[in-house]
């Protein structure tokens, strides 16, 4: 998505990608659903990273969204996919509302470590909750959409694919507007010099808190998608390696393009799946080499494959989605 892309054109892109799902092979649909879900949470990390802070604990909100949806689905039979996404986003958002203002006072490595610590506290509590299945987790039923249930596996997969692509796409458009807005530019300023921002009469803490809240909402919704796609939840959702993987997606994508987040996420899933199939004993090595390769040869992320380096043409701070440095570490 380039700067001058009209919002209607972006919506057309989303519609196109959604309809493309009709011709994709079935196994790709669920893979793309997971990729879209990961892209959504990675987008949240990019949003937050514009303030100069990286969260290594997005698994906390991911798990909060997932568990919230799963418990409500099992207790009250709420199976509607859109409602579940809203519930997941609300669960992540509520938690973000509590934690955001507390954590906004920290920055850099302290911020990262605190988010990591909080997610691991949640993980530890979940493992000890035998009522929630402990470390084994528990299952939920399959989602429906507006009262329709899908018994054909392909239709069910396509429904999830469509909902996740549309929600992630809308979140991407929202993020584009956010980045162009006054608030989005103030977020960049916080990263550059938060003292100056304070002198301008803005509260840096407040800006970080709001960005943190947005990232938490995205993570919660992403947790809902992951739950709907696999119908099972366990404390692994909150584990630090899960959070680390989302940061990886953000690094792979770079911060130049919202579309790159989706492409990076899909590429990671494809590489993982095929390396596991053809090289079952060394798939981690293949994954690692792939990550290293991207970092070495595309230091600005996969997005730099099709987005020009705008610094050559204009001051990047005014360009959408473009930060001067790598947003993620």
């Amino acid at each position, binding site marked *: 998505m380039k700067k001058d892309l009209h919002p209607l054109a972006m919506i057309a892109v989303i519609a196109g990608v959604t309809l493309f799902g009709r011709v994709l*092979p*079935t*196994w*790709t649909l*669920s*893979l793309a659903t*997971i990729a879209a879900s990961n892209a959504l949470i990675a987008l949240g990390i990019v949003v937050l990273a514009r303030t100069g802070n990286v969260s290594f604990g997005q698994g906390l909100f991911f798990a909060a969204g997932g568990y919230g949806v799963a418990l409500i689905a099992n207790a009250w039979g709420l199976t509607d996919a859109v409602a579940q996404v809203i519930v997941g986003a609300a669960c992540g958002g509520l938690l973000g509302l509590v934690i955001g203002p507390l954590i906004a006072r920290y920055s850099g490595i302290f911020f990262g470590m605190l988010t990591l610590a909080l997610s691991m506290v949640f993980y530890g509590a979940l*493992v*000890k909750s*035998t009522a929630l*299945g*402990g*470390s*084994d*987790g*528990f*299952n939920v039923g*399959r989602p429906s959409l507006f009262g329709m249930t899908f018994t054909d*596996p392909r239709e*069910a997969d396509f429904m999830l694919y469509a909902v996740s692509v549309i929600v992630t796409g809308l979140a991407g458009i929202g993020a584009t507007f956010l980045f162009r807005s006054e608030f989005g530019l103030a977020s960049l300023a916080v990263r550059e010099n938060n003292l100056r921002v304070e002198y301008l009469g803005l509260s840096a803490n407040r800006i970080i808190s709001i960005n943190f809240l947005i990232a938490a909402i995205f993570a919660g919704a992403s947790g809902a998608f*992951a739950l709907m*796609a*696999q*119908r*099972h939840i*366990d404390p*692994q959702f909150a*584990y630090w390696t*899960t959070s680390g993987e989302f940061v990886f997606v953000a690094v792979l994508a770079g911060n130049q393009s919202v579309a790159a987040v989706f492409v990076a996420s899909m*590429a990671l*899933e*494809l590489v*993982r*799946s*095929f390396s*596991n*199939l053809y090289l*079952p*004993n060394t*798939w*981690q090595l293949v994954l690692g080499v792939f990550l290293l390769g991207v970092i070495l040869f595309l230091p600005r992320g996969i997005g730099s*494959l*099709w987005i*020009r380096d705008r610094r050559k043409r204009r001051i990047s701070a005014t360009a959408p989605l473009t930060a001067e440095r790598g947003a993620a570490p």
Partner: protein
Amino acid sequence: MDRLRRTNRAVLFASVAATSLGLAVPASAQETFKLGIVTFLSGPAADSFGVPARNGAQFVIDQLNKGSVPSPYEKVGFGGMKIEPVIIDENGGATKQVQELRNLYQRDNVDVVLGYISSGDCLAVAPIAEELKKMLVLMDCGTPRIFEEAKYNYVFRTAAHATMDNVGLVRYMKAKNIKMDSLSAINQDYAWGQDSRADFVAAAQQLYPNVKVQTDLLPKFGAGQYGTEISALVGAGSDVVYSSLWGGDLQAFVLQSVPRGLSKRSQLVFSAADHVLPPLGDKMPDGTILGARGAYGLMSQKSPLNDWLFKGYEAANGVYPVQAAYRITQSILGLKAAVEKAMSKNGGKKPSTDEMVAAMTGLEWPSPGGLIQMKLADGHQAIQPIAFSRTKYNPDLKRVDLVDIQYFAAECVNPPPGVKSIDWIKGGMQGAKCN
């Protein structure tokens, strides 16, 4: 210039992506049976369970394809069809496993998926196979929750769940007159450890009504260092110290506790420990009571089928087979029996999923570890006999021998159909048929 390079890169990237998609187009399998096998090839469970299971699967499939398995499995492959295994790694968490299961069925077009060691993975993949209407054979995993909390048509488990490990262990202790007025326990703080502990304590309270639980420790999974825990256990000085630790954790616990005299103060009882005997060797204290989650390895009963597996596996891998190798063998042999039963009904064609499912439901088949019977969960969950024994180091063979072996019939240590395991134990294990 810059634009050109960028376009080239984009083209390259797109063509790589296209090639990988092209590779995914499945080849049609006419005369072969494509079997997806999922087991830990990396991670903490690989060394203890995953890799022995993979080696077991490779040995059995190789032998089946050559037609050199003893009666009643002489037929080549599955009913004449050569078996084509697709082995993938179980490591990486339930999210990844759900995705890989879909890929196996939908992309690689495997006929059946067989495997899974982790209970969390079993719980996660079962509903997906059911939705896709594809046959899934779970070969190991401990938790009884899979069929107690849900009903499946396309999912089977060819090994007994963890209930018998602890019920059988307590029955063995009772049969051997082990004194247990006081009990301490050390288990990992995750589902396997928590559930094993609950089952053992509940079963102990039935057969030893006066038992007092003293120190009850739940160190985290993969802790590796048990200094403080061993101090607490030595200090408590209970009659019995129970543990469901496994793999590296169990080895570390044994290595650290023996020099501090824990095995001299308390009777050590381990619910699933035969897989650490080859690596521990003479470091394993004599007289330790242990189980193997079945009549496996050195506790297996002599039969032509068992001799074939034990000797063949040992010759192929340089170490004798333990729990995981036995479990995957009984799983593959069970699937073979089901496929051949279905083929005898449909006139020798390659059976459909529904035909295989119908054949497997309620099936019984002989395995190196004894008779496997799909008796629970409407014929989808197996029960099997189990053995317990004491360790005794044999300096001539330089290996730990197992003595005082006692076998328990499947229906003595497994709950009857329709009863939740923990309720069955707490209700006094009604209906158990012990000889």
